[in-house]
């Protein structure tokens, strides 16, 4: 059974004895990316299991402090305005020449014909993920990066 985003929130189990990088991951990242890095319902964060095999340490370090620098497909934020003046913001699930589907925070998917929209704004460089610059110390960021980069 697929878990909802709330279930993701309450299954985070910080492990006091775990190495620093892993405990930081569980405390900071698992809420959106899943405690096994499985990605949570695609509601928030992309899959991180095995991320060390897909992304360099430098790329991962940048993603922690500047998550908008390279937003993965499926997590690009959009703001659209309908003809009757409603504003909808969410991560782009899919887009083609004629239609757009976005997932709002909370998981609801909204689908639009582009011809029915007054405005479609891609929020370039914006990620649903917060920056950890100043939230974690430099050595914590290094530990977390090392943990992610070593996840093969």
């Amino acid at each position, binding site marked *: 059974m697929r878990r909802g985003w709330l279930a993701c929130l309450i299954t985070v189990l910080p492990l006091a004895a775990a190495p620093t990088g892993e405990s930081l991951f569980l405390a900071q990242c698992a809420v959106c990316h899943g405690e096994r890095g499985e990605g949570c319902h695609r509601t928030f964060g992309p899959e991180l299991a095995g991320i060390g095999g897909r992304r360099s340490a430098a790329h991962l370090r940048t993603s922690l402090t500047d998550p*908008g620098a*390279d*937003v993965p497909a499926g997590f690009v934020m959009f703001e659209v305005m309908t003809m009757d003046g409603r504003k909808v913001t969410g991560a782009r699930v*899919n*887009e*083609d*020449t004629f239609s757009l589907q976005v997932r709002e925070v909370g998981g609801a998917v909204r689908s639009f014909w582009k011809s029915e929209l007054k405005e479609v704004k*891609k929020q*370039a460089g914006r990620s649903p993920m917060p920056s950890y610059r100043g939230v974690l110390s430099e050595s914590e960021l290094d530990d977390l990066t090392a943990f992610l980069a070593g996840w093969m």
Partner: protein
Amino acid sequence: VRHLWGLLLGLTVLAQAPGEWRTYSGNDSAHHYSPLAQINKTNVGRMKLSWMYQIQSRQHFEATPLVANGVMYLSEPPSDVTALDLKSGRPLWHYRRPIPEGVPVCCGQVNRGVALLGDTVYIGTIDSHLVALDAATGRVRWDVEVADYKLAYTITAAPLVVKDKIIVGIAGAEYGVRGFLDAYDARTGKRAWRFWTTPGPGEFGSETWPGDSWKYGGATTWLTGSYDPQLNLIYWSTGNPGPDYDGDVRKGDNLFSDSILALDADTGKRKWHFQFTPHDVNDLDSNQIPMLLDAEWKGKPRKLLLLANRNTFYYVLDRVTGEFLLAKNFAKQNWALSIGPTGRPVPNPETEPSAKGALVYPDDDGSANWFSPSYSPRTKLFYQNVREKGAYYFKTETQYQPGRFYLGAFKRDIPNEEPYGALRAWRPLSGDLAWEFKVHSPPWGGLLATGGDLVFSGTMEGDFFALDAVTGKLLWRIQTGGEIWANPMSYLFQGTQYVAIAAGSALLVFSAE
């Protein structure tokens, strides 16, 4: 007897009934145009699926089917052929070719189509054979090896029928093969001639390759060409030099890579050549469709050749002499600082792949690629699907090993770039844009203009749609549920016009009845 037979074959080719589609590009001039007008602006909105046919392979379905004598001849990946009944869409016969394990192929075990002459169907296979099949039964008439697939020679393009010969091009330039173009006797399968696309020592152009670099020089011929029966010339485009991105081991122009060749159809001898991208280090294969058009050029009737190149420039050449007439940019680019008066580009040194990474527009998939452009004699517009995308290229060491990649760089996409595509319609003699229709992703499908003044196209998100060929206005669309990696075509069967397109793993056939 031989001559009489050739004459009869010639007549068979000429005797294309209206509404048939007997050759990959629709006609010898490669207009990829159907004169059929039954589906037009007034009824295109009523287009409905008539039937569909599903293939079993998960490889890209890149085929353009042929229709003749009331039968559709369709190639399926990797190298199969199916004859389909036009009334029911049901198969009449299959040719299933077993493919050996481990054929080295850069871009999928795909096939773009078959050729048809008289009662024989011809297919080039991914293991580099040319096979002749009985059009009535699918039984093999002959099967000849074109080249050794273990060296990474493969065939993905539809062969071209020229009189009594079958012209076949090969792929493999990502593996350091030496390119060539072959002609085979249609009846016996005996090779009539071979033109090597990299010259050996002492041959014309050999000074453009240092040492033995010509042996691994690529310049492959993996897209169907065109033919001018009056001039008796075959026009065939060539691909990148090998290694793709490292020019250090092959200083010089590297003839005849990234070129268009005009070859005598009977002998395979070179009449002229024009090289679009000398000493290419960005994998800018010129394997695009060479379209032939007779038109008035600056007040004088002239035989022209039109080609929208992967390198972002649209070229007009005199196809009698190869004289350069026009180059017009049609997509974002940074690799050329300018194009000189003879058509020779001035390359930008900053776009040569480097250790720190070079940003290049277009990326190696190009602004155009193998997918077909279309020309309508009614609107007098040239239609081209255009890809707008760049990438970074990081130089790496590479050494030739038989059957292994021979590249010299790796590629990385530009973070947060939103590549896109557009169907652009321009005036063929000036390259001036008449209109464009933007699509979400850079496309991999070709175009079909029709006598009903429609242009058909497909997208990577599975949309198949028709535009007003005059204005570019959207008139009809359907979501097919599969990526479109093929050219649309149209035919007439029992008085009804049909439009066919491969989408995902299905061939879809529509009518407006």
